[in-house]
């Protein structure tokens, strides 16, 4: 548990400015079609804002490798969630991601921080060109560094591993001759609020299978609008964890840069009701 005035606290505006600077000089690599790599989600892997997609971060194809940097901020009534992440995509086969989350609990003036290392393996298919889309499996190891409040709320572990299976498909010229992306992910998890409230609880410590779903419409090759839904396991007895929902708008001016703006509805979080607000992210790639 750390005070908000902690000197290690980074300010999202700095991260945004730094990444924007990097993006202006970045020589984007990779050849996959614009915007089809998704953006970086709160877990640090490719997806929408909150859901995980089967696509791998960046635009690497079979003979390429790419690196991504991303920062995001989600601001709802009583919380801010800052995320910094880096992702490496090897040959559009394996993605390795590292993410740092910091949750500011505004009413309590505390921070909860955690780190997540993720692996995503593309099993088969190509989201754009294969009739039945693309399939990936992944795992995420998360370590919560500020376990005081989660322990008080009844969480059992300060670390945990998620496993997921994800499917993505881009339908070309599907609705009003616009391209459409559809994603579905099944996740086995014990994480309370991504792990920010720890893992498991005394009464419910087993893995739970939850779903993440989303669809997006490419207005053109630079603009994507869509919606997402992420089921949450709700394991703690002391506080309710609601499913998460977003409506998002992504702007991809080039392969080096992607902006995401979303309306988020996190429901009840750690005892605070009706947590709605916005999500803003910036991603750059090389």
């Amino acid at each position, binding site marked *: 548990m750390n005070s908000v005035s902690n000197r290690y606290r980074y300010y999202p505006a700095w991260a945004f400015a730094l990444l924007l600077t990097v993006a202006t000089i970045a020589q984007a690599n990779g050849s996959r079609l614009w915007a089809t790599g998704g953006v970086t989600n709160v877990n640090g892997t490719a997806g929408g804002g909150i859901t995980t997609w089967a696509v791998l971060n960046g635009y690497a194809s079979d003979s390429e490798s790419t690196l991504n940097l991303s920062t995001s901020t989600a601001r709802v009534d009583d919380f801010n969630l800052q995320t910094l992440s880096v992702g490496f995509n090897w040959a559009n086969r394996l993605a390795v991601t590292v993410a740092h989350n910091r949750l500011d609990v505004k009413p309590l003036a505390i921070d909860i921080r955690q780190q997540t290392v993720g692996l995503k393996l593309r099993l088969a298919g190509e989201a754009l060109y294969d009739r039945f889309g693309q399939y990936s499996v992944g795992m995420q190891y998360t370590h919560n560094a500020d376990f005081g409040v989660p322990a008080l709320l009844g969480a059992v572990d300060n670390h945990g591993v998620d496993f997921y299976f994800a499917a993505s498909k881009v339908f070309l010229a599907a609705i009003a*001759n616009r391209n459409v992306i559809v994603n*579905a992910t099944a996740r086995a998890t014990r994480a309370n609020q991504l792990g920010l409230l720890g893992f498991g609880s005394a009464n419910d410590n087993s893995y739970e299978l939850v779903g993440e779903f989303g669809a997006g419409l490419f207005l053109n090759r630079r603009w994507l609008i869509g919606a997402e839904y992420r089921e949450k396991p709700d394991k703690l007895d002391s506080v309710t964890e609601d499913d998460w929902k977003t409506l998002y708008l992504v702007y991809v001016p080039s392969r080096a840069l992607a902006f995401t703006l979303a309306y988020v509805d996190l429901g009840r979080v750690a005892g605070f009701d009706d947590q709605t607000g916005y999500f803003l992210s910036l991603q750059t790639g090389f």
Partner: protein
Amino acid sequence: MGARLRLSAAWAPITVVVALTLSACQSMPAHDRSLYRALGEREGIAELTETLLLTVAGDKRIAGDFRRVDIDRLHRMLTDYICVIADGPCEYTGDSMLNAHRGQQISSADFNALVEDLVLSMEEHGLPTATQNRLLARLARDRRAIVDAPAPPSPELRQLILGDLPLSRYSAPRDVRGL
């Protein structure tokens, strides 16, 4: 408490996928010339193909693959091919996509680079997003025949299967429209 299954919202994306798959399977009218007209008919397609070949020539990722190609013939063949793909009144006399790319070791990255050059060319010609997507959707079917196309069968094997038929006869007619 054991593991609970909460995929209750799964019906939503499944419905979307089924609907999109069904709509993609709907057969188009045999002579719907709307895409052909949107591309500017054969003249527009020929101009688009020219822009595409110029763009490719300046794309160092794949320009080398076209170095020893008869560009005039390629321009004519590609124009006819796109015209046929767009249900235009043209005849394509070239090899199937599979035979035209056999053994050339074309990677996904090479294919993606060409798609990107095509999109940029279509933008240069001011084609609307809808027209771009319709053409891409039809050309995308050819990817399986182009990327990592297997090498041509050895002459011995070919003779065993086809007798003395020349290689051009090896092209199955259905391949002309992709897969």
